[in-house]
């Protein structure tokens, strides 16, 4: 009766290790895939918003550029905090609101992304230069393209 529970424990632990191993492996792949899918969607949204640039409120917004290494996620959240407003009511207002809402969706986490939070202190959003909506959107697109070109995505 002594050896049996011991064996059972070992089997259970082995199974748990195997299970967590497969789940972890899957999730890291999935995390990267989901992030890339979301980034592709974001580029499409930015391109669409660029078409409505004349309907946006011309207020200057903080637009990070030349973002420091490993501060890309923090810079991206600065872009997300901004509420792009429609300047005039009209047919385009609804579309603009839908698009800006989609911009604000949280990015899927990845292993590299989690590391970014704890590392350096990144500049605050207000410290970045303010630009009109057109340049804001262009810089957002540049940031996404830069992130996709990195090897620590």
């Amino acid at each position, binding site marked *: 009766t002594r050896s049996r529970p011991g064996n059972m424990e070992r089997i259970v632990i082995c199974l748990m290790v195997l299970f967590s191993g497969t789940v972890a492996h899957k999730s890291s792949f999935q995390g990267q895939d989901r992030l*890339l899918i979301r980034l592709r969607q974001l580029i499409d949204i930015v391109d669409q918003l660029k078409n409505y640039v004349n309907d946006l409120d011309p207020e200057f917004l903080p637009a990070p550029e030349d*973002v420091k290494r490993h501060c890309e996620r923090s810079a991206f959240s600065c872009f997300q905090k901004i509420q792009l407003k429609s300047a005039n009511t009209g047919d385009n207002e609804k579309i603009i609101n839908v698009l800006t809402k989609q911009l604000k969706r949280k990015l899927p986490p990845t292993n590299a992304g989690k590391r970014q939070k704890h590392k350096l202190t990144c500049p605050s959003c207000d410290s970045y230069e303010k630009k009109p909506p057109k*340049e804001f959107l262009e810089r957002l697109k*540049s940031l996404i*393209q*830069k992130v*996709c*070109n990195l*090897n620590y995505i």
Partner: protein
Amino acid sequence: MEWPARLCGLWALLLCAGGGGVAAPAETQPPVTNLSVSVENLCTVTWTWNPPEGASPNCSLKYFSHFGNKQDKKIAPETYRSKEVPLNERICLQVGSQCSTNESEKPSILVEKCISPPEGDPESAVTELQCIWYNLSYMKCSWLPGRNTNPDTNYTLYYWHSSLGKVLQCEDIYREGQHIGCSFALTKVKDSSFEQHSVQVMVKDNAGKIRPSFNIVPLTSHVKPDPPHIKNLSFQNGDLYVQWKNPQNFYSRCLSYEVEVNNSQAETHDIFYVEEAKCQNSEFEGNLEGTICFMVPGVLPDTLNTVRIRVKTNKLCYEDDKLWSNWSQAMSIGQKANPTFYITTLLIIPIIVAAAIIVLLLYLKRLKIIIFPPIPDPGKIFKEMFGDQNDDTLHWKKYDIYEKQTKEETDSVVLIESLKRASQ
């Protein structure tokens, strides 16, 4: 007569009050001073100015600036503004001062300063100056000579980007028909903020007679990758699995693909446009490192299929996605459609026929005479007809009539007349 004058006075008073009321809060600052412009490198233009004199003491000065047509507005506390601009046309900056970073605040009177292209006839400048970055390794720029220029002009290309300390000259000049071009090395420094930057390019001639031409090439566009290499083709469950390796220096997620499948028998030509491609271990035998896979549906395995692939940069990582790489080397799979079989049968049949004829000729003389009739000899025929008398008269003797009459035969003859006399 009095009340129009009174009305006018009232009107004037109202205007003054109104004007005064509006003017007091919106006090614009004085304009900036000493606005000047200078050029660094090839195309980095910097405008600098001094703060205005007599600004309000409790105003933290910010400067509002924009280019012609109110483009590229900027509000910032710096007393300079820099921009990379190709100096092929005149460009002007207008600057004003204000007290906050609000876009709605009215700035001071704007002061303008322009910069003109270098001297020279605009018609003489080279045209169609364009650059392509090949596989993130070297950049090739090409141009056409300007009008009214000497065909013997020697051109020089200068280039600069932020990783270089100074402007460099391109050595490798070549001519391709009408176009002249130059090629120089350009590699991406890993993980630097190279992505936002550009290469500044200037073309001018050695004699200094033509007006220089400028181009600014962003490093996130005009990229042409090298062609990929197909590593493996295999059939599984009626589908064709293609496995290839992308050109170096590119992440797979940054490329879009086009897979072309040619079937020689069915004479089909299919092109598949692929956005994302990945290799899952379970489906591909012997998964090679760093390869990309794609499954082509509906391919006939018994026929010869030829596959080619090309790639281009996609919008996820680069600004433009117009330049396709060259096609990769083709790789084929499937049975080769019987040309050897047909050739062998075509060769064997004549051989058999020839052998049969030889055999028959040897063993059948009649056949031989039919096929190879004896050649008539006219001399012999004439000899037979009029031949030598000495030789051959003997065989004519049977036809001699005189010879025939030598044989004697006697028969008794009875006279009938004598018989008649006797009876009388």
